[in-house]
């Protein structure tokens, strides 16, 4: 037996049950009130007026038909929506139209919120939405608000996050091949493929899920574990190739991160950063 005191902190008790984040409410910038109220019922969570206080909040992103004229990028272009107390960013699954069967087992919002509760930071967005949001930089904002990151290390972590997210969206969910030959024709092919695949509703609806956990590490430091999961066809990591226009992203990630694991046939990448 160790000399452990019987009083556990609230955080330890939450961790013991697999719950890290207990949401006190949610924000839904741009969502019509009736849709917001239906989502509140689905989650058993009250809407919050603004990103304030210390209790964790989830942001529900108004995407697609709900994004309004300016789109999801404008709705989310407020720093406060990416800073504490906001700890999760979830795009609600589309409600099946009345009288039609839902096509496939779409996750319900309560399930996504429970997943978010198991992480310190959590994103679950469609590819169409994620593509518009510069997620690498936004993730860095959220992470560095919890643990300051400065100078070169900050730039490096942003690049690694950005590369991993881009890979999941472009090569994973959209299945677009990297630029191989060094030619403007290959650049045109990349542009065309990207536009075609984004216009495909099935591919654009594929999800990217990012779960971040921050844990104590040695020497009083902290270890951030970032898992990025896509719904693409996966890939097999090959040898380094630096002859073409593509192929440097994974190498850069490997150089920067303190840990890099690729799982699930290439559909999940797990990065670790000592902070």
């Amino acid at each position, binding site marked *: 037996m160790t000399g452990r005191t019987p009083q556990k902190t609230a955080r330890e008790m939450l961790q013991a049950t697999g719950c890290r984040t207990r949401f006190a409410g949610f924000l839904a910038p741009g969502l019509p009130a009736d849709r917001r109220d239906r989502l509140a019922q689905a989650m058993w969570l009250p809407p919050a007026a603004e990103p304030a206080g210390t209790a964790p909040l989830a942001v529900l992103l108004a995407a697609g038909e709900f994004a309004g004229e300016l789109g999801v990028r404008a709705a989310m272009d407020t720093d406060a929506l990416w800073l504490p107390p906001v700890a999760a960013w979830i795009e609600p699954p589309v409600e099946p139209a009345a009288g039609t069967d839902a096509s496939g087992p779409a996750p319900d919002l309560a399930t996504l919120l429970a997943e978010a509760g198991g992480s310190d930071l959590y994103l679950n967005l469609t590819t169409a939405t994620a593509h518009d949001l510069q997620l690498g930089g936004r993730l860095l904002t959220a992470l560095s608000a919890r643990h300051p990151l400065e100078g070169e290390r900050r730039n490096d972590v942003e*690049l690694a996050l950005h590369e991993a997210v881009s890979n999941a969206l472009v090569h994973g969910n959209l299945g677009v091949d990297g630029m191989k030959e060094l030619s*403007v024709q290959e650049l045109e092919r990349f542009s065309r493929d990207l536009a075609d695949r984004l216009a495909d509703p099935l591919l654009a609806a594929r999800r990217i899920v990012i779960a971040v956990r921050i844990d104590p590490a040695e020497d009083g430091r902290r270890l951030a574990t970032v898992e990025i999961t896509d719904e693409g066809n996966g890939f097999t990591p090959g040898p380094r190739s630096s002859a073409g226009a593509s192929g440097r992203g994974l190498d850069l990630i490997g*150089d920067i991160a303190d840990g890099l694991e690729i799982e699930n046939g290439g559909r999940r990448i797990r990065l670790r950063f000592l902070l």
Partner: protein
Amino acid sequence: MDYGIELRDQEAVVRLRGRLTFNDHAKLRTLIGEMGQNKLRRQVLDLSSLEFVDSAGIGMLLIAREEMDRAGKQFVLRSAAGQVKRVLTVAQIAKIVPIED
């Protein structure tokens, strides 16, 4: 990413601003076309106002270099700073493209 081109006596200077990522593919195609069309032999990319570049951005710079090579033009990167300078160094781009301070 945005850019502006200044035609000088001896060189065309293209100043890139903002973030250069995979999403800038269309702008890079236009830029490569414009660099090919002006008469100057020396095409300089001024990176001093570029804040961020990713691996696809590096790849597109290498495509620009290759296309200038095909057009018989010289292609130079100039004044990279901060994150951009660091990525160019880590990816060892100086082996492929001349980089000036």
